[in-house]
């Protein structure tokens, strides 16, 4: 049909009987589309290389088989029929095949009513399908915060794969397996949330069905006030940090990000409050501080006998210095700065992100942020922050801010690094790597070669060792803590396993840099070796205990590390609660003891701090103020902000909050003070100032005893087995 009159570079074809002229190289699909003929398709998108896998766009070109029009270029004289009975029937069968395995209605159809497969199938009369359903479900993947994956709704159109590769160059998604069991997979078939996926959302907006859909966070919308403004996707995309984020994703998450304008002196967030958002400052300056009194709870009195009431008071460090507190440490907070113990105030400015832990891990706010000038800031929910954190531009910026502002403090905050030269810190600023870990991800594995040293920047890391019968948690590390030195200084192998408990961000110092550091700075080496030796000794001691008390139940119930357990002999106990009342009397009316707990034979182990094997109370402290002493006692540091998370986390109810009246700056009147209630967490202090714990003393039936669990249980259980 291309004749002498066809201009160069053009092709004449016949399309459903009509003569049509299109540029050479045009696909039959496009030739039809520009001429007003709509050919159905599921795998073809205009901005992606056509792959011709769904076969719905087949047309009759007069050959033995039909041709997929999206991948077939026009040829001179081609006679194309797009809608013959043969073609329409074939398409209907294809839709029916896909519908037989399709969860109907799928997530997309339910959310927005626009599942492309269901729409086409309905139009073609291919639904419900006459074919047998798939017998083995391919499953769902709920691991990503932003995107829900339903493999059963996947029709393998490869749109998401091309979106990830061609459109965004992220190279995460591919096909896996073969034939009928083929599916899509992230990286090495990792769950999406654990993969290298940056949640750009491109796959999801490319997906024709409910296989990849936007995940709604519960209570997604941030309350918008007079000074807060919900944002349109177009507005956001103008802002450089949103460069590379899918506009459709932002569109779908409208309400999960809000722009606020805070006036000078307005409080942006308060320490101790629970929240679920993070803030990103666009303009202006803000002051970040903690206002809690720098003091810990001390129980005093009792010198004249038990009936003199004990008093708990707040004492500052100067008056009551505890061991290990001699060193000055910085207070880790949920922002890109650390606060100095002496003066816990810092400034945040444009480009700073704060509230990351609150947003990602739902921990209480670690500090109070007050606008110092007019401040414009984004407040965002978890799914938006997750996407932002995975965005290359934003990551690079955060990374830069961190290296510039916080890394030095962070390093210097580790006492033994105080002696590092500025040059070396400058070198480290460039060479360290920031790494993110998802909850549950193993950072280092016991027994594997040690090649790096880590500082915790965000989140909690569980340090555990394998021992016969299970895992022993050695410590929970949070911001400001470090690990990896034992392996590097010692035999070159990891002595413990470190696992991310929540969203964790670490500063990784390479083994080479670490060795340089140790070689160049004697103070660092001496300090680290001392700490490593201390940790090794403490670990050995714990392992030793474990080996000497081989009673699984005993161990698993968290008793083995207890210094002094309160045991109630239930054969004598009349449940009069005198012990509880005595405890309350001795502690400002607040009991630190509950007559409830685990039973062994006739004994009840009442709840009072038992220095657990796995001290869950330490997980989540937003300011890292609860920790374990080398003597195993759990202590609460001065800067406890009274948020109560540790009390909530303690499975035995052994941590209580103690209210104190304190003087604080009056926000209403600059320069003056006012009285306010501040809480501090407390746990059982064994009535340390008394000869005997008040609970034991108060028991009228000789049922309450304080015992050393190792000897007591060894004897008691030994007798039990002898019976």
């Amino acid at each position, binding site marked *: 049909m291309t004749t002498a009159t066809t201009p160069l570079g053009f092709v004449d074809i016949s399309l459903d009987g009509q003569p049509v002229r299109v540029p050479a190289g045009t696909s039959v699909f496009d030739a039809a589309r520009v001429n007003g003929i709509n050919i159905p398709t599921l795998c073809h998108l205009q901005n992606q290389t056509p*792959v*011709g*896998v*769904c*076969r*719905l766009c*087949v047309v009759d070109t007069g050959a033995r*088989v*039909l041709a*997929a029009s999206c*991948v*077939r270029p026009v040829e001179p004289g081609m006679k194309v029929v797009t809608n013959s009975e*043969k073609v329409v*029937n*074939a398409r209907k*069968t*294809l839709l029916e*095949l*896909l519908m*037989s*395995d399709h969860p109907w209605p799928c997530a997309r159809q339910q959310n927005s009513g626009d599942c492309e497969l269901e729409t086409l199938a309905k139009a073609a009369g291919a639904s419900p399908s*006459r*074919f*047998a359903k798939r017998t*083995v479900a391919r499953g769902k993947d709920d691991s990503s915060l932003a995107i829900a994956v339903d493999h059963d709704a996947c*029709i*393998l159109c490869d749109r998401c794969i091309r979106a990830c590769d061609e459109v965004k160059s992220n*190279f*995460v*998604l*591919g*096909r*896996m*397996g*073969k*034939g*009928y*069991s*083929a599916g899509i*997979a*992230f*990286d*090495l*078939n990792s769950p999406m949330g654990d993969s*290298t996926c940056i949640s750009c959302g491109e796959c999801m907006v490319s997906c024709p069905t409910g296989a990849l859909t936007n995940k709604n966070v519960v209570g997604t919308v941030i309350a918008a006030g007079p000074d807060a403004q919900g944002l349109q996707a177009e507005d956001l995309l103008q802002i450089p940090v949103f460069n590379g984020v899918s506009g459709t994703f932002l569109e779908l998450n409208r309400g999960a990000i809000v722009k606020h304008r805070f006036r000078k002196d307005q409080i942006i967030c308060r320490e101790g409050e629970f929240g679920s958002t993070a803030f990103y400052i666009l303009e202006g300056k803000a002051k970040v501080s903690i206002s809690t009194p720098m003091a810990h709870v001390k129980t005093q009195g009792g010198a004249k006998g038990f009936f003199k009431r004990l008093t708990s008071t707040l004492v500052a460090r100067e008056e009551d210095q505890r061991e290990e507190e001699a060193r000055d440490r910085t207070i880790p907070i949920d922002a890109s700065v650390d606060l100095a113990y002496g003066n816990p105030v810092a400034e945040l400015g444009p480009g700073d992100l704060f509230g990351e832990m609150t947003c990602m891990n739902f921990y209480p706010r670690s500090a109070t942020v007050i606008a110092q000038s007019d401040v414009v800031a984004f407040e965002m929910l978890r799914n938006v922050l997750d996407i932002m954190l995975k965005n290359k531009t934003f990551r690079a910026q955060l990374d830069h801010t961190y290296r510039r502002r916080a890394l030095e403090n962070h390093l210097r905050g580790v006492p033994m690094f105080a002696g590092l030269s500025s040059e070396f810190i400058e070198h480290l600023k460039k060479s360290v790597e920031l790494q993110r870990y998802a909850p549950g991800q193993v950072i280092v594995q016991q027994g594997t070669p040690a090649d790096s040293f880590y500082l915790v920047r965000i989140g909690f890391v569980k340090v555990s060792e394998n021992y016969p019968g299970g895992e022993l948690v050695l410590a929970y590390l949070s911001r400001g803590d470090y690990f990896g030195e034992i392996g590097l200084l010692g035999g070159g192998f990891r002595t413990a396993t470190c696992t991310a408990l929540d969203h964790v961000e670490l500063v990784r110092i390479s083994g080479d840099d670490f060795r340089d550091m140790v070689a160049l700075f004697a103070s660092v080496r001496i300090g680290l070796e001392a700490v490593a030796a201390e940790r090794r000794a403490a670990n050995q001691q714990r392992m030793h205990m474990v080996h000497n008390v081989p009673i699984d139940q005993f161990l698993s119930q968290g008793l083995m590390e207890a210094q002094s357990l309160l045991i109630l002999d239930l054969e004598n106990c009349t449940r009069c609660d005198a012990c509880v009342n005595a405890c309350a009397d001795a502690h400002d009316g607040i009991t630190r003891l509950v007559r409830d707990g685990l039973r062994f034979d006739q004994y009840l182990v009442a709840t009072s701090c038992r220095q657990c094997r796995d001290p869950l109370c330490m997980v989540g402290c937003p300011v890292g103020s609860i920790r374990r002493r080398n003597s195993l006692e759990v202590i609460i540091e001065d800067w406890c902000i009274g948020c109560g998370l540790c009390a909530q986390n303690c499975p035995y109810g052994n941590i209580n909050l103690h209210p104190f009246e304190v003087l604080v700056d009056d926000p209403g009147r600059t320069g003056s003070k006012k009285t306010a209630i501040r809480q501090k967490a407390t746990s059982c202090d064994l009535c340390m100032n008394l000869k005997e714990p008040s609970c034991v003393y108060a028991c009228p039936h000789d049922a309450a005893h304080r015992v050393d669990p190792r000897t007591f249980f060894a004897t008691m259980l030994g007798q039990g087995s002898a019976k």
Partner: protein
Amino acid sequence: MIFDDLRVIQLRYGFLPKAELEGLSQRTQTPLYQIHSVASFYPHFHLLPPPKAEVRVCADMSCHLNGACQLRADLLSRFANSRPEDVQIRDVSCLGRCDHAPAISINDHIFTDVTAAHAEQIARNAIQGNTIREPYPEHPRIACKADPYGESQKYGVVRKLTQSKDWEAVLAQLKAAELKGMGGAGFPTSMKWDLVRKQPDPVKYVVCNADESEPGTIKDRFIMTNLPHLLIEGMIISGLVTGAKRGILYIRHEYRLQEEILGAEIRRCYGQGLLGKGLLGSDMDFDLEVFVSPGGYICGEESALIEAIEGHRAEPRNKPPFPGQIGLWQKPTVINNVETFINVPQILARGVDWFVSQGAGGSRGLKFVAVSGHVTHPGIFEVPMGVPMRDIILNHAGGVRSGRQLKAFAPSGPSSGYLPASMADVRLDFKALAEAGSMLGSGAIVVCDDTTCMLDMALNAVRFYRSESCGKCVPCRVGSQKMADLLVGWTQGGVPETQYRADLALLDELSEAMSLTSICGLGQIAPAPIQSVLKHFRTEVDAHVLQGQCPSGICFTPAARAGEAPRVGIRP
């Protein structure tokens, strides 16, 4: 090359540990997903630690006809109390030992003519940690009519051509001989070579498809064992004629012996200046290497094969463009079957007239055919093209064994469908078989005696395609499974008549859609076996569904109901 990297890792660990794949990704700057998409595609690679004895029973046509189901059931009961980390018994697609059925592989070593007791012994040996070795059958060099050289100096055609350089004459002779592709499609060889020759691109390739994996097809195995020099000569000629300087011989990994024979022959050629730079002192170069397939029937599809060489998933490309225009690494590529290549030096050495005279009944040339199934002497035979099928089955393969009657035969594995005994006089010829509603294909004649259930054979063939579908396009990926599901229903009974009528209509719609819309031949041909059975053995199928009877007593048995063992490469 990704396959080499993966093989090195698998050799060291027995499987592909995640940490090693992550290391490979770092080293080679390959995205993780690419490594996984390839490693999870090919049955050759293990993503999980394999058991000590991985027993795979060939489940396809010839082995199926020779008791593979019973063998598998026996083995499953013999190892019923074994731990999965010790032994796993699964199905595998055709291992290319159809003349010695049933065949099994244990830890990738192939054993033929096995009994359950024999297989158990080998597997127990492997469980105990002993190394097991594939027995290499002694293959005496069988003198073939196809070899123009005999005891005289080989590679005579190449020697002459490097002097004359008369490429047009080569193409003219191939055209005059009407040489067609012997892999199944029967495309004229001279046209293919001429197309590549005319491409202006200075870089071109010659690829030999020695990946024959269709059940029943073992002729290339025989040719590579006995006539390796003809194959290499054919490839060199193709390179010289088309201007390609590099050849790749793609061989299935189950053919280790042939890989060795060809490797030795290639080294000999390099030693004699027949390969490499300045071929025989001329100004022409041609290098040849062997590429071992990571496995799968789909790799025999020419564009899927090219994808495999490039290190991708073996998913067929949309055509056009054809490999002759855009092939391996986007360059013009000649890709021919083993038997096509060996025909070239035959024709050029002895002339077109000789070639024409070798055929029977107006057909041309010689043909290697494999006969397997229920015959007395299964094997590979060199016959004149055009002889009647009955002649081959009776005179070469010794007829149907144990005095049984011929019921049906597949002229070329599952792709050709099944023809009834009444059509056994059909000639071995492209046109004659096409007219009979079948095809010459690769010459893999599978013979069924009168104890065979044809519905069972159709289901067996459909399952083969289902298992070997690459999954790229919808009609084949989903359609092959739904077709198998439908037939399973028929073989298990309990389908009411109205449902059966509806099923038949649905099957026709499905067959039509698969044939018309699948990207490659696999999906297009997958409906052929059941359609041929419905055409020639309809009463038998009706008896199954309407009367609940299997005339051959195969279906409705507990063993048949138990369904199939999971196949390699099928990961639910």
